[in-house]
């Protein structure tokens, strides 16, 4: 079974490969679950694989939990309806726990740390360290999720109550805010350093006005960070051309 779990883990890296609106990540989930269903016997194998590929959506790093839990439930003789309900019930929590933990935690936390490192002169070392550390966490999370699902089956909520997971979620939020908060001024200083004093003051004034413009209630819905940044970049390009 170790080999089947390793196969499932490898396939999980491609879980987003057939993303579409009809089944979201469903087909990818079915493909990843298939190695865990091979020993079910012919009569149960085919319908179980087909069920595995039904509609599914969740965070890609935690989705192994659903793959493992559904495969375990199939082995435990759960009815097709129970397996479907388990899958449905897992979409929401796996999505929101994963979003909090990874997209709003681990990833921006390490990105902020990396930017701080670069601003303080760590250079490419910081980038390499980011790629290694981020992916150690990422692969560990995928492997833990698959193992936890496979161990607990339908009682998989036990795994989601894991104190480490809870604490990581609680710590990463503020930690992320701290590193991004530190990265902003440090990165700005790092990028503005080569310019002369007048240009840096102009930059600070423009940044301050842009911030106020984004906070201006009348701009809601029309103005966002990306549009404003693109507009300012275009303006800078024009100024540079007519006033070399």
């Amino acid at each position, binding site marked *: 079974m170790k080999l089947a779990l390793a196969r499932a883990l490898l396939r999980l890296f491609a879980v987003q490969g057939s993303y579409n*609106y*009809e*089944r*979201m990540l469903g087909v990818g989930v079915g493909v990843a679950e298939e190695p865990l269903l091979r020993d079910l016997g012919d009569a149960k194998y085919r319908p179980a694989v087909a069920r595995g590929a*039904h*509609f599914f*959506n969740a965070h890609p790093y935690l989705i192994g939990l659903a793959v493992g839990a559904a495969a375990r439930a199939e082995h435990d003789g759960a009815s097709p309806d129970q397996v479907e*309900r388990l899958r*449905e*019930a*897992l*979409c*929401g*929590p796996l*999505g*929101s*726990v994963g*979003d909090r933990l990874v997209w709003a935690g681990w990833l921006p936390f390490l990105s902020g740390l990396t930017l701080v490192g670069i601003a303080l002169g760590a250079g490419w070392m910081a980038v390499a360290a980011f790629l290694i550390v981020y992916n150690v966490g990422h692969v560990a999370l995928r492997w833990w999720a698959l193992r936890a699902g496979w161990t607990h089956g*339908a*009682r*998989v*909520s036990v795994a*989601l109550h894991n104190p480490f997971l809870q604490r990581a979620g609680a710590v990463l939020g503020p930690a992320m805010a701290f590193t991004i908060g530190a990265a902003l001024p440090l990165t700005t200083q790092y990028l503005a350093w080569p310019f002369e004093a007048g240009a840096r003051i102009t930059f600070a004034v423009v940044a301050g006005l842009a911030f106020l413009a984004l906070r201006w209630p009348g701009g809601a819905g029309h103005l966002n960070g990306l549009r404003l940044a693109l507009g300012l970049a275009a303006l800078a390009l024009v100024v540079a051309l007519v006033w070399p």
Partner: protein
Amino acid sequence: MSLALYRIDDRLIHGQVVVGWGQPLHITFIVLVDDEVRSSDWEQDLYRMGVPPDMEVIFASVEEAARQMASWQTDPRVGILLVGDVNTAVSLVEHAPQVRTFNVGGVHHRAGRTERLRFVYLTDDEAAKLRQLAARGVEVTAQDVPTAPAIPVGDFT
């Protein structure tokens, strides 16, 4: 205010509901109406995990929901009511006629359903039931997130 949204979504509680709708509407509670989830502890445990700790989740069967509808509708807090499929929505309106709107937020592919919108797949029977609901005066629209336009029932069933 009170119940700011009555929604059909087969994923029930998930990010689009909690964050996408929950934040702009400033909700502090979610009513999940589903007979099967009501009687299943492990499913309730999972759904509770999808919401922030300070948000209350109330699980109710259709009949319980009908009995408590008035108190939710006059609750000083703002909440969202969720059902998982068209049949539960119809049954809820039959038991609690004071439900006057339904938002079709996400009904996904399953055998027998065909695509009506990117996020709405319905069997012909489900589409007919939604039209009947509208004919009885319930305002039925499809809208996945608050920033998208609300599509009237006639345009997608």
